[in-house]
């Protein structure tokens, strides 16, 4: 092997020859890029950049139990990784729409538009800067759009341990995680969320008031309903309308609905989330509630020859659930009213029709928002449900027209 240039000092030529004889030079074509990339990987062992702690701060304990220092004055909240409920919870507990720096993704905006908060705080719906214009949702990946989020100027990020909140917490941006909502009590989750949010905004008493009102509403319902012996509790099924049929079976998040309404879950014993028609026919529940947000209406459902044999269909006891999508996961204010709604349907002889009044009162007294009759009609799905048994009690002139039909 000839030296590369005649002027090379002697030891170098020897090294050159030695390496060449091992063919190492031939390996360089791949070795250099591999080694370089390995070195770049090592750059990741640098310590992560850390945000400095805010100069003045108060500490809030978040849903995961971690204490987080929120800077003062409060700079703005970003909602990340949430099925949109977090924005609702924030507005409900703080009544401070100006404190939002980011409310959610474009898809969440569409859902938000269907819920009452978009009417109480229309400026939140209209303000483009609050919503991510991309089509990302948290489901596409935990850190989808994290660069855009980081660009926001905000004092605190709200989120869940699966989302970009994980990253923001890692680098020291004040991040509050909502508690992980497994199949536990949704009400407890809502209460904890409200407390945390209200504390951030500096008005924890607002959350306490909401929570007390929420509890009070359940107490009043229990008092009025009395104790219904289990044998006389009607059997209720909450289901979707396209095959294979989605059923809210006993080990998921609808369990909070049914006990306060004192009804039995028809799907006890089933483990699957989806069942075929045969199982549903075998269940033969007393009442059927269809998922809100889409699918066949109660009229269509009852007209379907497939369901003709069900006693709920024969007695016209098929209703659409309240809520725009998902049904029932409605926040501290709406939740007890929604439960009362189901109780009024399933125990019409025990309860006076009060849902409309409760709805109107709740939002006027707490948020200064008076729902019109047409709004309440829409929220209660009056046009879809009016053809079903006993739904007249929810109509505007219910006091004069309320009908009774004894449960079987």
């Amino acid at each position: 092997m000839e030296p590369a240039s005649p002027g090379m000092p002697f030891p170098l030529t020897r090294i050159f020859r030695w390496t060449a004889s091992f063919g190492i030079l031939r390996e360089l074509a791949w070795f250099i890029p591999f080694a370089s990339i390995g070195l770049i990987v090592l750059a990741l062992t640098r310590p992560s950049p850390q945000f400095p702690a805010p100069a003045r701060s108060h500490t809030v304990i978040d849903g995961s139990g971690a204490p987080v220092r929120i800077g003062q004055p409060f700079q703005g909240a970003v909602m990340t990784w949430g099925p949109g409920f977090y924005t609702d919870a924030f507005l409900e507990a703080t009544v401070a729409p100006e404190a939002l720096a980011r409310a959610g993704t474009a898809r969440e905006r569409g859902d938000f538009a269907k819920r009452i908060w978009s009417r109480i705080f229309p400026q939140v719906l209209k303000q483009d800067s609050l919503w991510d214009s991309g089509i990302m949702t948290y489901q596409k990946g935990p850190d989808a759009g994290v660069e855009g989020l980081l660009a926001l100027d905000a004092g605190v990020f709200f989120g869940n341990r699966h989302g970009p909140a994980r990253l923001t917490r890692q680098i020291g941006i004040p991040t509050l995680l909502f508690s992980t909502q497994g199949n536990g009590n949704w009400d407890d989750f809502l209460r904890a969320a409200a407390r945390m949010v209200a504390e951030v905004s500096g008005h924890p008493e607002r959350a306490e008031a909401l929570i007390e009102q929420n509890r009070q509403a359940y107490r009043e319902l229990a008092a009025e309903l009395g104790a219904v012996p289990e044998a006389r509790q009607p059997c209720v099924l909450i289901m979707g309308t396209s095959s294979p049929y989605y059923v809210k079976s006993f080990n998921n998040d609808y369990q909070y609905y049914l006990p306060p309404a004192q009804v039995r879950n028809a799907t006890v014993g089933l483990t699957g989330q989806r069942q075929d028609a045969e199982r549903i026919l075998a269940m033969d529940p007393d009442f059927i509630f269809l998922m809100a947000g889409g699918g066949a209406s109660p009229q269509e459902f009852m007209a379907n020859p497939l369901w003709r044999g069900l006693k709920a269909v024969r007695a016209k006891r098929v209703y659409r659930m309240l809520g725009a999508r998902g049904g029932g996961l409605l926040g501290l204010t709406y939740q007890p009213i929604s439960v009362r709604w189901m109780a009024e349907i399933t125990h019409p002889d025990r309860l006076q029709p009060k849902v409309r009044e409760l709805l109107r009162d709740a939002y006027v007294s707490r948020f200064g928002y008076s729902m019109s009759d047409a709004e309440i009609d829409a929220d209660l799905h009056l046009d879809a449900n009016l053809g079903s048994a006993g739904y007249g009690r929810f109509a505007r002139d219910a006091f004069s027209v309320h009908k009774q039909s004894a449960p079987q």
Partner: protein
Amino acid sequence: MNNTALAFDGLGHAYLPERWIFRGYRAAVTRGRVFALLGPNGRGKTTLLKILLGALQPSEGEIQVHGRIAFVPQLFQVSFDYSALDMVLMGRARKIGLFTQPVPADEEAALQALERFGMAHAAHRPFHEMSGGQRQLVIFARALVAEADILILDEPTSALDLKNQGIVLEWIAKLRDEGLTVLFTTHHPHHAHAVADDALLMFSERDYACGPVDEVLTEAHLLRLYGVPLRQVAFEYEGKALASLVPVHGSLRRLPVAG
């Protein structure tokens, strides 16, 4: 020093129990000579080759190999269009470590081997674009580059046209003259007759004849082997007295009887 390149004794193989291809075969291949393996299709020549190459364990018998073997297969399939030089370079496998790449010395050797067979000009042409004869020579070069003592060829002439058959046979003789031991299978007895020094005729399961070509490649043996009578024919060409074997088929052209 042992003059035997390859020897086997009591060799037998059965793919299925009790279905022996051959049994009790015994032969010795002398160094520096050409050894032909003859037998009709299906007699087991390829099986015997696989055993000699060590790719197949014989059911019984033992083999001794003194020296390194290089193999030239009959059919050549490559999935990628390597150049002729790439193909020859593969012959250096034994000399190149598991995790090392060929060095310039290897490529030199490959190129020189190609030159040996007059194929250096085509070193960078794709292998699969070459004619059958050229491919055969490239594979010869590959066998050579492995620096083997024994060359084993599986039907080296079967796929070739007339001219290339001659070229290959001449090369076999040349390599033998240079000291290589060559073993090849064929079902052209006149090829064996032309270049081989020794031959093994595989008649049947237990029946075989082995020995120098003059003794073994007789018309009687060949009739027994192929079921076709062959005649050794002598003729003169350019002042040389030559001989070859000719099969006597029923369809041979008849000459009118003189007088």
